[in-house]
């Protein structure tokens, strides 16, 4: 187990190194020039050159990347070009909001998705199954800005149950979490449905029924733990999809998370911010996958981590 963890952590570090390299390279070859953004349109060539030199952007790629890495291993993510603040400080201020939103969204999509999937599997081929699968299809295909605007209009504008945007109370969290959760629930319900259908066909479910167990116990104690196994692995991967969706949802709901920070950074080609946010997202994905793998043996005793 300890050996497994050490090996996984080494792998994770390599993944993050790869992510940093590719992102840095992409930003380097990008035709847009961050110095122009900083200096403004009326700046003289001399000022532009000064800023370029000051930021070290006149150096070759290898030197720039080596400098960045050197800072990174010391925990230094660099300074934002425009906000003149440490990127680490900016991210630290916004990370809790994003993590809260992510937790709320995962909760939403699991509760919605797993329930829908189990019900559909148990009512396979009947009206309820077809209705649920149609719903999940819509959930999967609907763009996030449409879902978020729809929710905003119905529950915030018309019914006034929840605030239109912002951050602070539980009520603020509901609509953005639901937006992300609805999209995810579409995937989870389909996955859960097919896993559950497979499990319900197995010999051990027949055994459980032959013992005279009640339907509830057969489903909750015997079928569900087996069917949920592939779903757990999915959660780890899912965090990556979140990081993309969060940019849109945080903008629509005015949620002060790193998605907004990323959006600001991208608009102004603020390289340290883009790098910082990308690396934090990559970290989240790596940790999510690791956690999913670490949880699995507790549900499936056949799996041993080594």
């Amino acid at each position, binding site marked *: 187990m300890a*050996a497994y963890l*050490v*090996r996984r952590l080494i792998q994770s570090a390599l993944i993050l190194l790869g992510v940093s390299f590719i992102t840095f390279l992409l930003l380097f070859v990008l035709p847009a020039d961050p110095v122009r953004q900083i200096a403004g349109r009326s700046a003289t060539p001399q000022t532009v050159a000064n800023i370029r030199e000051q930021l070290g952007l006149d150096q070759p790629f290898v030197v720039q990347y080596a400098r960045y890495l050197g800072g990174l291993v010391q925990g230094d993510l660099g300074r934002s070009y425009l906000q003149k603040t440490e990127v680490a400080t900016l991210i630290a201020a916004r990370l809790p909001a994003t993590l809260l939103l992510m937790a709320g969204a995962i909760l939403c999509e699991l509760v919605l998705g797993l329930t829908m999937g189990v019900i559909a599997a148990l009512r396979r081929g009947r009206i309820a199954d077809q209705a649920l699968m149609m719903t999940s299809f819509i959930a999967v295909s609907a763009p996030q800005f449409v879902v978020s605007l729809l929710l905003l209009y119905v529950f915030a504008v018309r019914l006034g149950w929840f605030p239109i945007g912002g951050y602070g109370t539980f009520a603020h969290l509901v609509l953005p979490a639901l937006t992300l959760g609805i999209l995810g629930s579409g995937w989870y319900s389909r996955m859960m449905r097919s896993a559950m259908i497979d499990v319900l066909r*197995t*010999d*051990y479910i*027949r*055994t*459980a*029924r*032959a*013992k*005279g*167990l*009640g339907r509830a*116990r057969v489903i909750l*104690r*015997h079928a569900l*733990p*087996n069917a949920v196994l592939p779903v757990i692995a999915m959660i780890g991967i899912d965090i990556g999809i979140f990081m993309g969706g969060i940019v849109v949802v945080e903008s629509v709901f005015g949620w002060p998370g790193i998605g907004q920070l990323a959006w600001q950074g991208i608009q102004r080609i603020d390289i340290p911010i883009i790098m910082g946010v990308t690396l934090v997202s990559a970290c989240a994905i790596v940790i999510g996958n690791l956690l999913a793998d670490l949880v699995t043996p507790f*549900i*499936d*005793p*056949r799996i041993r981590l*080594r």
Partner: protein
Amino acid sequence: MTRSGAAPAPEIAKAGPVLSVTGLEVSVNTEAGLHPLVTDLSFTLMRGETLAIAGESGSGKSITALAIMGLLPPPAVRLTAGTIRLGTRDLTRLGEAGMRAIRGDRIAMIFQEPMTSLNPVLTIGTQLIEAIRAHQPMSRARARARAVEALGAVRLSEPARRLGQYPHELSGGMRQRVMIAMALALRPEVLIADEPTTALDVTVQREVLDLLRDLQRDLGTAIILITHDMGVVAEMADRVIVMQSGRMVEEGPTPAIFAQPRAAYTRALLAAVPRMGAGAARAAVDLTRNRVLGRPDPARLHGDDAGPVARLEDVRVRFDLKGGVFGRVTHGVHAVAGVSLAIRRGETFALVGESGCGKSTIARAMVGLVPHQGLIEIAGQRLATNDAAALKALRRRVQIVFQDPMAALDPRMRVGEQIAEPMVIHGIGDGDARRARAADLMARVGLSADQAERYPHEFSGGQRQRICIARALALQPDLIIADESVSALDVSVQARVLDLLAVLKRDFGVAYLFISHDMAVVENIADRVAVMYLGQIVEAGSREQVFGDPRHPYTQRLIAAVPVPDPGHRRPPAPRLAGEVPSPVHPRGRGPARRVLHDIGHGHLVAEGD
């Protein structure tokens, strides 16, 4: 109806029927309407008796069992007529809630596949205790004590520790005993055993059958034994029902059915059962036929003009297990631990042993599917897994026929193309020539050439295996490896496929490496036999030597464990196995102790020591 707590004396218990089935009809709902799976089935089960329902696949025997349990797969399959009475109560009118109270409590069931019949994520204890508490409200502690008692009754060692274990930590035989413990913990009046030993090795089957018989004697449970194996029927049953295509074709006391079967189907079924001791007689026929046809004796052929078709010398196959931070090899599974043998041209060489003994691994090594150490020679050429061209050429000489023909055939490819495919791969002939040869091969294996345009699902299991055999013959190999090739087939189909193999051997001069766990089949078709145990050969020789004069204790135990399809046969009490088969896993750098084979005369090799 009162539940009997203590076991009643069997004489008293045997009075009166406990279960009676009348006019049972089970149908499946298809697009073409209701299609009957079981038709007009009536029988009674007496207290304490064992009633066997025998038949081949599709006979409706398992469906009957599920109907009694009220577990027919909804919504397609349902009971369409008849009554099932337990005592005076009609189970068909009980509904799901009523049936739930009966299931596991008054009628219990064990299934064919012990490997998949237990929930992999719950402990043995959880699964046993919930079965007890589902019907008898009692504290967890008391239920636990009952569970330990039940595991002790099925002769599992350390019953208390087993409760904390998961199914994957137990072997197949142990799992089936857990299933039996679960079924009998509440002392049901009826136990339905659906092919309870079919998936088990023959020595384990012996123990499980003995166990069932002992428990029945102690508890007075009536057993419905569903099986395709007439040997098991002869050993276990008081009465037999023979079923075919959903109908009962014959019913009667076991000795009468075996001595004087009335129905033609029963006679055919019994005739198809491979019997130990019948091999020698058949060999004599084969030999005369050979002489009539003027074909050379395989032994003579081997003598001078050609070497053996395959020669293995100290072949070892090890699978590495990795561990630690850097994933280094820490342990090895020694699947094959030093096997030497030679297969002569035109002979049938059988490799027998129980699951996990390494016999299939040898087959895979011989066609280069797994890397090996030691020497494998095919037709005098050394098999080297790192030389792709040479390997391809050698594969032309050796073909495999696997156990499950449905899995071995591509479901989306016409069978004619599949038979011709090996010729395409090896660039033999043009399209027309290949088609003609495929048609010819189909005729040779007893199929008509116009079936070449069909897909595998349009054939029966036996026909599919014939297609696989035709495909194996397409390259005119010197050796066909038949890896459990007839094990999944019904006995009557099995008998015909075995006959086909014998005919093809004569006509094509091909040799077989026949890999099987079934001693009776091997005894019927093999020229020479090697017995494998834990990756090594413990005994080898001609069929007469190994079966007529088995010397190694393991060979003796294997032969003694085979059920004999003769109710009059009384076996000597088998010595009970001393625990489980040892593990083939050894730490890196170490391996199993080598067995040394000694020739005790005329090429009869026996491992010394144990």
